[in-house]
């Protein structure tokens, strides 16, 4: 997971639904296919919301991790 080059960092700590998903849309709108984004969130709902968003929008989650109250997702934009 750490070997992937990150093009954009998205900090959604402290934000609740629907903000992490809205921020993902906003960020990926301006990204090119193949670019990679790292999202850090504290909303526990993101554990299911982010994969649901990725599946629906066709973007790929390369990896995810959980540390304390923080959830990290590495997403490749399609």
């Amino acid at each position: 997971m750490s070997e992937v080059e990150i093009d954009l960092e998205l900090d959604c700590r402290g934000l609740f639904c629907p903000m992490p998903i809205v921020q993902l849309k906003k960020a990926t709108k301006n990204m090119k296919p193949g670019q990679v984004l790292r999202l850090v969130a504290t909303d526990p709902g993101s554990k299911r919301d982010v994969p649901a968003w990725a599946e629906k929008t066709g973007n790929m989650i390369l990896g995810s991790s959980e540390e304390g109250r923080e959830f990290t997702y590495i997403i490749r934009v399609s």
Partner: protein
Amino acid sequence: MAEKPTKMAIIVHSGTLDKLYPVFMLASTGGSMDMDVHLFFTFWGLNAVKKGGLESAKLPGVMSLGTGMMKGKIKSVGVPSLPELLEMTRMTENVTIYACSTTMAMMDVPKEQLIPEVDEIVGAASFLAIAMGADIQLFI
């Protein structure tokens, strides 16, 4: 990604804060998920798309007295306001807003009193034609 986007149609009948939040949370999220979202504002819901309507939406009935407290709590936990959520639905470019023409006539609301985010003024037939092909239909 699916060839045909998932479609969601919501009839917004209520104009109170507690009902408008789920409407705009679902709409901004659906739009962010590249869903095709349609919001039809009718009856009390029309108040929400009047200029200043989202800002002045209150909790229903006697709970309206607690609106300020509720808004304060919403703000303190970092949840966006209704006007901010509306702005987010526009950002997604996937959300269409309709105002009900009959309600406008019944409640004496001319077009000029509506917020510019209203895309179209339509009747029931137009909305049914949209909802007919929708995967998700809600009445809030």
